[in-house]
């Protein structure tokens, strides 16, 4: 895949030789002639109109570049919390090699029991501001959340009571390794209509390498047993997602995709665990995402491709022509509580000095104000062509790689742009 650009207009030359145009502000996609590709290549080199460029082509490019499409909109993300994640335990029965929760699910502060009264009050405060018709998400996180099923049951019951009769769309989510899902746990999640994400990185030979029990045993067989229990209550779950983590330890996205594809899921989530010196792995991951997209589209077209969450997200944004100013809602629409009700904007900031933005029902407005501006602006995305689909990148990765939440990680940018370019390529094919 090759790219050429002038101002708002990007041209993507695909490996199949097609040329796709993209307007970075209007979020419009177009099939374009080879002449546009040649012209944009020249234009991006000289950054001016070259006399050798076909004037009709240049004028058409310029006209598209200058177009302001009223259908393209930007929806600002205000500082109203509508997504709340809570650690219902800070212990885990697994010890994954890449664990970002302190290496063992404890976030450096092992707690099987949470301060549930504090969490109740916090939920009450956050739910108090939610208006009729709005959606509010409660995500049960950990550690492994299913070691604390009673906490999930009690917190869910409390949240439901808070919104009873108020016309609020309350949704529950859980991120689990699946190993503790038996009939009883599956029934709990089904009763809540929970949106369940099971973490699994691929077939046993891959997954067992990095997702081990504390005793060093592989966890795949137990996870798959849990998945079978979830499939029995499938129709009562909100949705079922598989989440796979890649990184320096594993970049084989296509292999993982082929392994997971036969299961009856709604979405696949592929994440890259950033780490120091991960440039080579990141580039291979990006290539693998592209190969996986090629494969998915070839076997099932748009429907199959959009089962991969990232592609679904970009297709929706392109269909709706909505600019994304924020990669995520951290510190705006989202807060995270640890087992003691200490609030951070992101789960990966737990226990880190200076990152706490509240405790219990007290919010540190001064600290939250630092998150108010759009991430695109805070992270200096400038004229990046992908910024309106990316939304500015991840503060956690920026800090991990560069020591500052707002200093962009170039590897993140490369793999995000690769994925977005691939999404644009197939969007053009699907909508042609």
């Amino acid at each position, binding site marked *: 895949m090759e790219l050429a650009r002038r101002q708002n207009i990007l041209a993507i030359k695909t490996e199949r030789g097609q040329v796709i145009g993209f307007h970075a502000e209007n979020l419009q996609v177009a099939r374009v002639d080879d002449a546009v590709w040649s012209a944009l290549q020249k234009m991006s080199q000289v950054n001016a109109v070259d006399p050798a460029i076909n004037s009709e082509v240049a004028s058409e490019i310029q006209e598209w570049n200058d177009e302001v499409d009223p259908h393209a909109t930007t929806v600002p993300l205000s500082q109203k919390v509508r997504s709340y994640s809570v650690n219902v335990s800070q212990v885990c029965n697994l010890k994954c090699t890449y664990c970002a929760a302190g290496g063992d699910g404890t976030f450096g502060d092992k707690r099987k029991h949470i301060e549930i009264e504090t969490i109740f009050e916090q939920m009450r405060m956050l739910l108090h501001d939610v208006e009729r018709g709005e959606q509010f998400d409660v995500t049960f996180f950990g550690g492994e959340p299913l070691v604390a099923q009673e906490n999930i049951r009690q917190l869910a019951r409390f949240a439901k009571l808070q919104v009873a009769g108020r016309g609020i769309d309350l949704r529950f989510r859980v991120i689990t390794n699946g190993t503790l899902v038996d009939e009883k746990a599956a029934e709990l999640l089904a009763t809540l209509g929970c949106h369940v994400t099971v973490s699994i990185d691929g077939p046993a030979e891959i997954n067992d390498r990095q997702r081990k029990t504390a005793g060093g045993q592989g966890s795949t067989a137990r996870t798959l047993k849990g998945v079978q229990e979830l499939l029995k209550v499938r129709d009562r779950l909100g949705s079922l997602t598989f989440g796979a983590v890649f990184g320096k330890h594993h970049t084989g996205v296509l292999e993982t995709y082929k392994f997971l594809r036969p299961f009856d899921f709604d979405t696949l989530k592929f994440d890259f665990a950033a780490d120091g010196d991960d440039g080579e792995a990141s580039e291979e991951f990006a290539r693998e995402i592209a190969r996986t997209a090629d494969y998915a589209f070839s076997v099932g077209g748009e429907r199959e491709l959009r089962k991969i969450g990232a592609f679904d997200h970009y297709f929706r944004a392109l269909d709706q022509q909505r600019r994304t100013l924020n990669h995520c809602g951290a510190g705006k629409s989202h807060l995270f509580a640890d087992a003691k009700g200490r609030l951070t904007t992101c789960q990966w900031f737990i226990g880190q000095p200076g990152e706490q933005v509240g405790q219990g029902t007290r919010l540190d407005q001064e600290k939250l104000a630092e998150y108010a501006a759009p991430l695109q602006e805070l992270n200096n995305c400038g004229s990046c062509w992908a910024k309106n689909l990316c939304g500015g990148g*991840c503060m956690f990765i920026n800090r991990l790689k560069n020591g500052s939440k707002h200093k962009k990680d170039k590897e993140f940018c490369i793999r995000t742009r690769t994925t977005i370019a691939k999404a644009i390529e197939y969007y053009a094919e699907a909508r042609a």
Partner: protein
Amino acid sequence: MLKQERKEKEENEVKFIKKVKPSPAKEVSGKPTGNEAPIRRGPACVPAGD
């Protein structure tokens, strides 16, 4: 000139760039995950409240 005729004429004049039409109503497989809004409200790294 009628509006439709003008639109068609404009479309015919485009020689090198042909925009594809968005299809916001497109149905996809699978149940909605609640992450459908293009503005992410929750974390991007775990599927919570996009």
